[in-house]
């Protein structure tokens, strides 16, 4: 060891660097926390969770979980979470279906379809999601006609009072149907599905492109049509590449659902913002938000990892 100055010591140096970094982090955290505690106690807002049991006093629209203003804050937040989960689950399914269709359209034998799929992806990916959501809600959905003038499609009625699924009828100027979706949910879902589908389409396209051309040719020589080849031969193999890529897209969709406030849908973030305003508990509310979304992401990741293992084993 003699002759080697300490700053070139291969064993000491890493320890010193780590100690310095660790100390800096500790000092910064202690500084921030110290300020937080001091400022919060000055404002009389020290960390406490008792307010969660107080009655909320506000209503939450379209809750799957029954909720009214007498129930406590934690029930309101839970109702918001259920609303978030609802839009995330339906959105995941919708975006996957649409994304797969658009992604495989890039390999269609029809040149027009190919170009259109490309244009769709380029258009959607370069326009901010928030702008798209506002567009869907304020421009498209809010200008739907109401009453007898409502748009009628087979099995679907689009009216300003809501989107009615199944056989619906006009009763006293009001539409009645077996299932009604509010405009807010409809707009958010449409925006999220269309946005995420563009990204999922890219993942699918990349996965399909990774399959060697020999596979296509072999299937063709067996007499399978283009569509059969794609659906039976190429896609199942491409899943190996697609599934890991989907993971991050699914997580983005879950996180993007927090833009629901832009179109008036009461998701977790919207309820949390109201809660913050009625209670003034900024730190607690932010902690709840961060914790919940982190858990949601981890759940999606865990699910996708299991799916991934399934796909990889099947290949053998």
């Amino acid at each position: 060891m003699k002759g080697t100055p300490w700053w070139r010591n291969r064993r000491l140096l890493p320890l010193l660097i780590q100690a310095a970094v660790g100390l800096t982090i500790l000092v910064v955290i202690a500084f921030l926390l110290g300020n937080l505690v001091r400022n919060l106690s000055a404002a009389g807002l020290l960390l406490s969770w008792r307010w969660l049991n107080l009655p909320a006093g506000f209503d939450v629209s379209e809750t799957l979980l029954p909720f009214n203003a007498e129930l406590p804050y934690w029930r309101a937040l839970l109702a918001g979470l259920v609303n978030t989960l609802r839009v995330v689950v339906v959105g995941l399914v919708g975006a996957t279906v649409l994304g797969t269709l658009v992604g495989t359209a890039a390999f269609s034998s029809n040149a027009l379809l190919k170009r259109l799929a490309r244009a769709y992806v380029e258009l959607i990916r370069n326009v901010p999601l928030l702008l798209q959501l506002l567009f869907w809600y304020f421009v498209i959905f809010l200008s739907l006609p109401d009453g007898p003038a409502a748009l009628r499609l087979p099995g679907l009625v689009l009216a300003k009072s809501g989107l009615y699924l199944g056989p619906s009828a006009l009763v006293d100027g009001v539409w009645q149907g077996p299932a009604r979706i509010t405009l807010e949910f409809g707009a958010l879902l449409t925006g999220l599905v269309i946005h995420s589908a563009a990204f999922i389409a890219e993942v699918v396209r990349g996965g399909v492109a990774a399959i060697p051309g020999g596979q296509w040719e072999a299937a063709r020589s067996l007499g399978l049509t283009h569509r059969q080849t794609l659906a039976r031969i190429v896609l199942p193999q491409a899943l190996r590449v697609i599934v890991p890529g989907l993971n991050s897209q699914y997580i983005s969709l879950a996180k993007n659902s927090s833009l629901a406030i832009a179109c008036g849908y009461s998701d977790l973030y919207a309820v949390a913002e109201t809660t913050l305003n009625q209670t003034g508990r900024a730190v607690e509310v932010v902690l709840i938000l961060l914790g919940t979304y982190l858990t949601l992401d981890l759940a999606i990741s865990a699910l996708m990892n299991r799916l991934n293992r399934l796909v990889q084993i099947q290949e053998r």
Partner: protein
Amino acid sequence: MDPRLKSPSRLARLRRDLFGTPLDGAITIALLAALGAGAQALLNWALSRADWAVIQANSTLLAVGRYPMAQQWRLWLLTGLLCSATGASWGLLRRRSWPRNDRIAAGLLLAMALVVPAALELGLDVRARWWAIAGLLLLARWAAGRWSHRLPLICQKLWPLAWPGLYVLGLGLIGGGLGLQPVRTSQWGGLLLTLIEASFAIVLCFPLGIALALGRRSELPLLRWGSTIYIEFIRGAPLITLLFLGQNILGFLLPGGLAPDRVWRAAWVLTFFAAAYVAEAVRAGLTALPRGQVEAARSLGLNSLQTVLHVVLPQALRVALPATVGQFITLLQDTTLLSLIGLLDLLGTARAIMANPDFLGRNAEVYLVLAVLFWCCCAALGLGCRALEHRLNRHSSTASR
């Protein structure tokens, strides 16, 4: 081989591509019908129902927000400087040649300078400024291409360093101080604010992201764990909750009055947010690097810092380039979220305009213009990235030859 098979006539090729099978034919016809109907509806709306007065009346507000009228010459000056610098860099890149892409770009630029001010019904003096700036850009392009070889090589090599200098100068021009009348951040708005926030975050998140990526792959457990926790924490949270945290809690975390104001607070949140994503992109580049590279560098006697700076990063960043620029594009789009926390960025200004009773219900026009603006900015970034990638790959392949 029959030459006709090799290059069938255009009509025949079209027929094969669009009507190859009966099903393809049906799809083509259905798509064409749908496209036609959509285009007709859009045209119908754009020409008869749309009222573009909302854009014409508010073009200044959308561009710079409530930036004081008397100080706007500073922004024109900055635009002029930026355009000259762009032209000069462009000229240095291409020299005296004008390839087809350049001619198209120049044509587009001239057309834009002629059409946009006219469409916005701007005053003649403002139109003249548009023309002057477009002219300046092309002139700088031409002059730099023509005369730059006369300059000493060192000037050409150092030219890219002018950009960071220009950036700092730009912020100074916008914000004032040092003799210029200060313009408060609360008066910045519109496209100006969007670009400031996006550029600030892009410039700073890049080095931060590289540091985090190196930290995550470090052999020192504390660095590794610290970076990993940071990256995963940030990536697990929606941006809106982080912006919310920045606006509502940062004031509690710092001693009274020391917290930056809302505009810079949001810019820092965007920076820290984007850094985590850039770190992941760079890490992918680092992973793609063969181990032999580091070992070879070490055996040549380079120390850790030199290895990282001269061997690891240049190669990793080239691999990470597309994903990193993708993150920058996302970041530019994410600035729209600032409107949700009450800042008057491009979208926030647009929403404020639509609250004006005179322009009530003009959502479609405003959102469409914003969408076109964002699309152009993002597409341009993407194209630039592809060009850069192409250039880097060409360089590396000539070097290896």
